[in-house]
């Protein structure tokens, strides 16, 4: 099997008696942009900090460029890290911040000057070089933090929730900048976030983590379209996927021999290839944007309970015989709470999970 550029083999981490990572196996290709995403406490930051050499390894291996780096000092791993809090040196100017790592390495002055010039050019920091971090805006500080990583010409970039401290607009801008930077430099990047939008928009590969384990690895849209388990289905997507408890039943329809009964008398269609047996308890998943809203008599009747127009899309909440359903419409829906409507579901868009194991069926 081919080696990854960054590779984790059976990686475990405990703080005292508390296990944080339960055995991570993952290969990251050279030049890839991998996003580790998961709720807080899932171990994603710990994994990144272990990669950086800021946390020790309890068990297993971390390999970078083919070498086991478990016992290699953080400064010798060929990595550069951008922290959530930027971690700029507050008493040094932008120039000195950028130069620090090279000075510590005793790089020749010429090389330092060139590296700063290069990084400042890429990140538009040239007019700010003499300023102190306190004199910079949040976005500028973020760019300095990236510049500091850049001058080291690392083999791997590590980002620990770098956009969390920025306001929404700046976050979108910086997201694009980081992605553009990666496209330009093609340096292997591991990026930690709890924000699924960041994960979806930036990654070549998304790694969904939960409780110290990897739940699923794959391309963003592949994971979105085909979540392997209930956790991933629930975690990715905003508004979240509708997950309805139900039971597989046999029907009289020739084209739909099986369906899921989610409440008394409400049968919802399932994909024909789903490996579900009649009588099996399942969780029926359908994304809000895949619930089609139709005229009151053209489908399963629902009553609108809440309408949230967001401008570019409309979030609706509907009552399906006692079950609350989220619906997302890209069109402007004139519905009001209490209005009657009906829904249609394309069976090919349905995700079916075993209720006991949470696995996809």
């Amino acid at each position, binding site marked *: 099997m081919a080696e990854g550029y960054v590779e984790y083999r059976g990686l475990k981490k405990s703080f005292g008696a508390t296990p944080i990572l339960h055995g991570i196996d993952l290969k990251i290709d050279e030049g890839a942009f991998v996003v580790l995403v998961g709720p807080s406490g899932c171990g994603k930051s710990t994994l990144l900090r272990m990669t*950086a050499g*800021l946390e020790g390894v309890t068990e297993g291996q971390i390999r970078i460029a083919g070498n086991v780096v478990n016992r290699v000092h953080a*400064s010798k791993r060929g990595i550069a*890290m951008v*922290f959530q*809090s930027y*971690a*700029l*040196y507050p008493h040094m100017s932008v120039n000195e911040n950028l130069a620090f790592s090279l000075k510590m390495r005793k790089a020749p002055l010429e090389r330092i000057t060139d590296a700063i010039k290069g990084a400042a050019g890429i990140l538009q920091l040239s007019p700010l070089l003499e300023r102190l971090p306190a004199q910079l805006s949040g976005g500028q500080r973020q760019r300095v933090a990236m510049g500091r990583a850049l001058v080291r010409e690392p083999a791997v970039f590590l980002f620990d929730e770098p956009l969390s401290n920025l306001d929404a607009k700046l976050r979108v801008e910086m997201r694009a900048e980081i992605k553009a930077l990666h496209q330009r430099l093609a340096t292997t990047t591991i990026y930690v976030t709890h924000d699924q939008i960041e994960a979806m928009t930036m990654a070549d590969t998304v790694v969904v983590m939960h409780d110290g384990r990897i739940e699923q690895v794959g391309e963003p849209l592949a994971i979105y379209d085909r979540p392997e388990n209930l956790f991933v289905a629930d975690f990715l997507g905003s508004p979240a996927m509708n997950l309805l408890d139900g039971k597989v039943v046999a029907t009289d329809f020739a084209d739909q021999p099986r369906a899921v009964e989610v409440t008394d008398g409400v049968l919802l269609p399932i994909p024909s290839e789903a490996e579900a047996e009649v009588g099996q308890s399942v969780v029926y998943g359908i994304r809000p944007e895949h619930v089609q809203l139709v005229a009151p008599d053209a489908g399963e009747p629902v009553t609108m309970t809440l309408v949230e127009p967001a401008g570019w899309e409309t979030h609706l909440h509907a009552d399906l015989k006692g079950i609350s359903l989220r619906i997302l419409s890209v069109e402007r829906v004139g519905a009001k709470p209490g209005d009657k409507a009906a829904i249609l579901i394309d069976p090919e868009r349905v995700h079916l999970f075993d209720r006991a194991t949470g696995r996809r069926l």
Partner: protein
Amino acid sequence: MATLTSPSGAARREVSAIGRPPSLLDHLLRRFGRAILIGIPLAFLVIWTMVPIIWALLASLKDPLEIYESTTFLPRDPSLRAYWAVLGMDGFPRWMFNSILVTVVATIVPLILSILAAYAFAKYLFPFRHVLLLMYLIPRIIPRVSLIVPLNDLMTDLGLINTYWVLYLTYIASAVPLATWILVGFFKAVPKEIEESATIDGANMWNRLRYVILPIAWPGVVTAAVLCIREGWNEFAFVLALVTETGMRTLPYALYMMRDAMGVQDFAIYNAFTILTVLPLLLVYLLLERRVVESIVSGAVK
């Protein structure tokens, strides 16, 4: 557009805050309340601390007999006679030198030791660090006077009585806990990520301390230095107990001895001596005041 029927924002807030329209008293309290609350205690404090110094300064400029007359506040015929007398004393240059030497040593050495100790306490997880840090306080919790007899015995056994070493050792031992406790707080306030960032940037422990931690925590270092200087300069109990030779005295000790030495009390000389003793410390304070205030304020806000 504001409507005529709605009160202005400020007025609305006032009404809702106190439940009735503001009276003249409220207005005055709001206007002058701050000045009263802060100004009066501050003025009292300034007078409380300044009066003895001003009195000593004025007395030092008076004629010896004039001081006994309670009718004059300002010197009738100000003269520097007393200062020349003090500066002309046989031992004075030596005492001044002793004070400066001991204070410099009792500032620099404790600072170096405390910076290292505080860095370890603040940034490294090692067993018993909380207990150790508490034990650091013991020398400062035990009353100094109760240490004098055992210290005198010990130093006599070691043959250090009447040497600079006895002062260095006791002063340093007394200053280290103080400086360490101050610095631990400042070092802890340096965010962990900044140090981690420096680690990744290739800075070893010394370089992190030198280039990152110390510059960021510099106001704390200055604060600790000022307190060490004050401790060393004003120390009295140890020098009284452990030094007997005239030539080994420091200024506070010499000042104390002067009272007994002068047959006729010349209060002008006595006060001039006091002023000359306090003056260097005042200069240090004035030079470092901004840094200290900065550090106290930053500590309070963070």
